[in-house]
C-alpha cells in the first residue's frame, strides 16, 4: 500500500467532511478559520466591554445567520475566549424554553446549569469561582473593619487563588455563621437590591460544602424538600403559587447580576435555536426575558442567535418595537467564507483528520489531481461554511470511492444525531437536569407519531388538559381486540413531598372513579422518591396507587435520557441544525417519520418500558390487521422505472424544473393510468438524489429536477 493509499484509507474511516453541524457549543469543536466570523466575534467582545464600562446602559445583541453559517461555532468561540478577553466574562448558553408560563424559572435554571458545570480544562465551575471570590471579599472586609486578621495573610492563599477557600478548611468553623451574617450585611449595604436569602445561599455554598447540592437546587428556583430548606435556612417555596415562583426566579437572576457586577465580570447569556419559539406566548415570554436581562441588569448581556429568515418573517414582526429595537441597535450579520477562507476551511478539516501524518500537500487528496474540480465547486465568492463542507465532501467521496456520494437516508442521519444526543446527556447529565417540559415535549412527539399497528392503538391524545395540573396526558388506548380504555400519564420531577403526594393522590382518585383506566406515573430518578422513613405518607400513597393498578415508573437516567434526547433532537431539527448529505436541513415531518419507523418499531429505554405498560392491555385473541394505517411502500420495479422516466420528462418540460408533488403525480397517473400515491412517488424520487431534489414547503412537497446531475 502506498503512502497516498494509506491516507485515503484514513479518510474513508474518518471523513472530516461528513459532519457539518457544530453540535453542543460547550463541547469540542473544529478549529477556527482565520478571519471567518471575526467581525461578529470582535463586535460582541466590544459589546461586553461596553456593558462593563457602562453598566447602566441598556443593551442586547443579536446575531443573524442562516443555518450553516457558523452561529453555534461562534458561540463555542465566545465561550472559549471568556478568560482571554480584556474584560473576562461568564457565560450561559440557553436552549429554547417550551413552557411560556415558566420562562424565568427555566432561564434561571439554565443559567445555573451553565454556572455549575465543570468545563473541560477547569477544575472548578463558574459558580465556584463566584462564591469563592465573594467569600474572600467578605473576609477581607471583616478584617478591615475589625482591624485584626481573621486569617493570617501568609497562610491565606486566597488573594491569588480564591477558589482554594472552597476546599481548604482554614476558616475556623466557629466563626463561619458570623462571617455569613457579616457578608449579608456588607453586600446588602453595597447594593440594597440583593435579596438576603440569595446572599445567604451563596455564602453557605462557599463555606459549607455539605449544602452545595441543596444550594444549587435552590438557586435553580426549584421547590426543594423540607430538610434542604432547613439546611440552607431559607423560606419554603412549596406553598407559593406559580406566579410567585416566577417572580422569585427573576429576583434571583437579578441578584446574580449584582454579583457579576460586584466582581466586575459580566455575563453573556446566549439564546440559541430560537426557531423553536413558535407560539406567540413563547415570544412574549422571551421578550420579558430580554427586558429583564437587557434593561434591568448591570452586568448581563443577552445575545440572541437568529436564523435570518426567521428574524425577517417572524421575530422582527412579533417582538414589540422596544425589544426588536434593542436587537437592531446591536445586530451582527454572519457572513460566509470568501474563497481563501473556503480553502482554509477544507485545509483545516483535512489537517484535523490527518494530524501527525506527512502529506504530499496540505490539500491532499484534492490537490493536485482534482484541483480544477475543487475550484469549480467553490465557484462563488461567498459561500456558507456548511456549503463548502458539503461540496468538499461530495468531491472527496468521488475521489475515495470513484463514484458520487451515496446519500444516507434521513432516518439514518436522525438515528446518528439521536444517539449522539443520548450519549451527550448520559456523559454530562448535570448539564441536562430534570426538565418536565422537555419530557412532555418528547412524550407528545412519541405519542403523536407512534404507529397504530403496534401492540395497541393510542388515540385522542390530549396534552396537559386545562384545570388539572397533575395530569400531563389523557388518551384512549385501544387493544387489538378493540376494547378502549382511558389512559392518563403523569410526569413528575418535584422534590417536595407534598407536591409528589398530591400527584399520587390524583392518580388514586382517578383509579377509584374508573378502575379500568391505565394511569402511568413517570418520575426522573434524579428526583429521589425517598424511603418510608422519610416519606412515610408518600410511600403509603404509592402502595395504594399500585394496588389499584397504577403504574409507577422511577426511570433511571439511562432510560429517561431517551426522552430528553428526543426533545433536544426536536430542537435541532426545528433550528435546521440537522442536515442531509446534500446540506439541506431535515424537516419536522422527517423527524415524525423517524419516530414512527425507528423509535416506535425498536423502542429503547423508557419507550420500551412504556410499550410494555401499553401491552398489558393486550388480550390473547387478537385479530388485528397489521396494515391498518402504516403500509410499507410496494416495490414494483417496472412501474417505478416508468414513474421515474415520466417524472423526469414532466419536470424537464416545466420552466422551473420544479413541480408540486401532487400535480406531478396527477400528470403521471393521467398518462399511464398507474394508480400511485404521492407518498410513493416522493419516496421513489427521493431515493434518486442524483437526479431529483425534494423540498418540503409550507403547503406541500416540491420535486425538482437537477440540471447538473
Amino acid at each position: 500500500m502506498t503512502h497516498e493509499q494509506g491516507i485515503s484509507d484514513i479518510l474513508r474511516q474518518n471523513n472530516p467532511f461528513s459532519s457539518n453541524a457544530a453540535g453542543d457549543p460547550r463541547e469540542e469543536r473544529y478549529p477556527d478559520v482565520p478571519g471567518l466570523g471575526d467581525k461578529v466575534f470582535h463586535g460582541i467582545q466590544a459589546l461586553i466591554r461596553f456593558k462593563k464600562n457602562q453598566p447602566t446602559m441598556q443593551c442586547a445583541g443579536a446575531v443573524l445567520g442562516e443555518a450553516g453559517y457558523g452561529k453555534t461555532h461562534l458561540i463555542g468561540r465566545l465561550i472559549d475566549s471568556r478568560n482571554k478577553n480584556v474584560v473576562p466574562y461568564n457565560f450561559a448558553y440557553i436552549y429554547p424554553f417550551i413552557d411560556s408560563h415558566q420562562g424565568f424559572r427555566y432561564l434561571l435554571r439554565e443559567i445555573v446549569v451553565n454556572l455549575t458545570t465543570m468545563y473541560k480544562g477547569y477544575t472548578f465551575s463558574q459558580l465556584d469561582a463566584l462564591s469563592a471570590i465573594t467569600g474572600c471579599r467578605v473576609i477581607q472586609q471583616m478584617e478591615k473593619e475589625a482591624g485584626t486578621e481573621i486569617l493570617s495573610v501568609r497562610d491565606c492563599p486566597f488573594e491569588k487563588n480564591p477558589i482554594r477557600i472552597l476546599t481548604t478548611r482554614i476558616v475556623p468553623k466557629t466563626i463561619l455563621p458570623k462571617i455569613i451574617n457579616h457578608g449579608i450585611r456588607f453586600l446588602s449595604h453595597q447594593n440594597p437590591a440583593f435579596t438576603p436569602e440569595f446572599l445567604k445561599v451563596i455564602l453557605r455554598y462557599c463555606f459549607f460544602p455539605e449544602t452545595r447540592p441543596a444550594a444549587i437546587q435552590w438557586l435553580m428556583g426549584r421547590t426543594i424538600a423540607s430538610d434542604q430548606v432547613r439546611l440552607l435556612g431559607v423560606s419554603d417555596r412549596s406553598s407559593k403559587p406559580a406566579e410567585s415562583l416566577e417572580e422569585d426566579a427573576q429576583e434571583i437572576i437579578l441578584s446574580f447580576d449584582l454579583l457579576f457586577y460586584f466582581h466586575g465580570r459580566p455575563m453573556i447569556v446566549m439564546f440559541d435555536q430560537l426557531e423553536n419559539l413558535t407560539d406567540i406566548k413563547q415570544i412574549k415570554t422571551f421578550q420579558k426575558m430580554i427586558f429583564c436581562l437587557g434593561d434591568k441588569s448591570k452586568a448581563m448581556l443577552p445575545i440572541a442567535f437568529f436564523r435570518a429568515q426567521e428574524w425577517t418573517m417572524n421575530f422582527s414582526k412579533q417582538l414589540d418595537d422596544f425589544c426588536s429595537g434593542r436587537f437592531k441597535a446591536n445586530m451582527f450579520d454572519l457572513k460566509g467564507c470568501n474563497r481563501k477562507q473556503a480553502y482554509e476551511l477544507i485545509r483545516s478539516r483535512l489537517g484535523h483528520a490527518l494530524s501527525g501524518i506527512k502529506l504530499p500537500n496540505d490539500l491532499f487528496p484534492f490537490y493536485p489531481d482534482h484541483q480544477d474540480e475543487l475550484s469549480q465547486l467553490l465557484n462563488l465568492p461567498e459561500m456558507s461554511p456548511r456549503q463548502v463542507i458539503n461540496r468538499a465532501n461530495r468531491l472527496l467521496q468521488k475521489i475515495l470511492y470513484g463514484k458520487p456520494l451515496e446519500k444516507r437516508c434521513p432516518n439514518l442521519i436522525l438515528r446518528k444525531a439521536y444517539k449522539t444526543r443520548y450519549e451527550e446527556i448520559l456523559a454530562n447529565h448535570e448539564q441536562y437536569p430534570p426538565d418536565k417540559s422537555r419530557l412532555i415535549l418528547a412524550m407528545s412527539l412519541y405519542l403523536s407519531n407512534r404507529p397504530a399497528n403496534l401492540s395497541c392503538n393510542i388515540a385522542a391524545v390530549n396534552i396537559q388538559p386545562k384545570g388539572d395540573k397533575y395530569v400531563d396526558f389523557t388518551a384512549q388506548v385501544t387493544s387489538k381486540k378493540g376494547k378502549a380504555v382511558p389512559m392518563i400519564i403523569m410526569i413528575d420531577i418535584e422534590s417536595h413531598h407534598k407536591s409528589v403526594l398530591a400527584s399520587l393522590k390524583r392518580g388514586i382518585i382517578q383509579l377509584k372513579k374508573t378502575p379500568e383506566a391505565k394511569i402511568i406515573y413517570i418520575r426522573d430518578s434524579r428526583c429521589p422518591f425517598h424511603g418510608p422513613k422519610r416519606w412515610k405518607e408518600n410511600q403509603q400513597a404509592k402502595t395504594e396507587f399500585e394496588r389499584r393498578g397504577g403504574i409507577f415508573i422511577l426511570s433511571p437516567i439511562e432510560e429517561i435520557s431517551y426522552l430528553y434526547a428526543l426533545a433536544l433532537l426536536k430542537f435541532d431539527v426545528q433550528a435546521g441544525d440537522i442536515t442531509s448529505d446534500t446540506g439541506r436541513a431535515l424537516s419536522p415531518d422527517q423527524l415524525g417519520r423517524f419516530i414512527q419507523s425507528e423509535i416506535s418499531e425498536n423502542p429503547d429505554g423508557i419507550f420500551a418500558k412504556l410499550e410494555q405498560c401499553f401491552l398489558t392491555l393486550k388480550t390473547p385473541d387478537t385479530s388485528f390487521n397489521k396494515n391498518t394505517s402504516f403500509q410499507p411502500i410496494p416495490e414494483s420495479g417496472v412501474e417505478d422505472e416508468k414513474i421515474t422516466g415520466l417524472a423526469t420528462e414532466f419536470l424537464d418540460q416545466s420552466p422551473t424544473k420544479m413541480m408540486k408533488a401532487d400535480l406531478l403525480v396527477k400528470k403521471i397517473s393521467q398518462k399511464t393510468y398507474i394508480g400511485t400515491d404521492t407518498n410513493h412517488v416522493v419516496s421513489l424520487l427521493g431515493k434518486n438524489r442524483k437526479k431529483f431534489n425534494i423540498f418540503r414547503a409550507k403547503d406541500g412537497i416540491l420535486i425538482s429536477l437537477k440540471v447538473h446531475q
Partner: protein
Amino acid sequence: MNTAEKDLKITSLIENVFKKHGKDFINLKTFLSYLDKKELSFLQLKPNSIQDAVEKAISPVKSPYQIKKFKQSKVLFNGPLAEIALAYIEKRKAKTFGQLNKDFPVIKGEFIDLVNTLLDQGCLRARISTSEKIILYTVDKKATQLLTETAKTEDADLFAMSKAFDTRTLISQFKDAYYNVGKGANYVFIHQIRNFLGWSRKQFDELLYQMMKQGYVAAHPGNPGALMAQEVRDSFQDEYGDLYITVSWRKSV
C-alpha cells in the same frame, strides 16, 4: 465690482450654502443663518433680515435657482422643480405619496402636478401598497425600455442579451428592487424581488447567478418549510441543486 462678477459671487455663495445644508431646497430664513459676517455685508443683509430682503439680495442671479412661497416661508430651490422633486423621491425610496408630500415644500396641488408630470414622462412608477397607499419610486427610463423588450425574448440567452443590454443597468434595477422590497433589511427574499421585477425566469436566474459569482450579492439557503410552494419555486436553485431563499447586497454597482 461689475454685475457679472456680482452674479458669479452670489452664485458661488448660494452653492456653498446648499453644500452645507445638504438638501436641494432651503427656507430663506435658514439660508441667512449659513452666511458669515462678510457674506452678510456683501449682500447688504443683517442676521435678522426679513425673507423679502434676502430674496431681493440674491435675485440678480436667475437661472438655475428659483424662489417659491410655501405657507409663511419663502423657499429657494437649487434647480428646476421637477428635477429636484425627482432627486428627492429617488433619495427617499419607496415612500408613500403622503409621506413625500409632507416634507417637500410646495403646496399639495403643485406636488400632485409635479408627480403626474413625472409619471407621464415615465420617470416615476407608482404601486399601491397593501394599506392602499400610493408608493412612488424612480425608474431608469432606458432600463425599463430594455426590460420590456427583454420580456418578449424570453428564450434568448443572457450572453446574447448582455450584448444588447447594459448588464450594469439590469443590476442597478435589481438593486432598486432589492431596496424597495427589503426596505433596508439585510436579507431579502428572492421570490419577492423576482415578483417585483417581473422579468422572465431565465433572465432573472441568470442575472442573479452572475451577480452571485461576481460578488454583488450573497445568496443564502433558508427554510423552505416556512414558505409556500410557489414562493419556493420563485426562489433560486443552482446547478448543484443548492436552494437559495434570500439575498444580501454586498457590492455597489
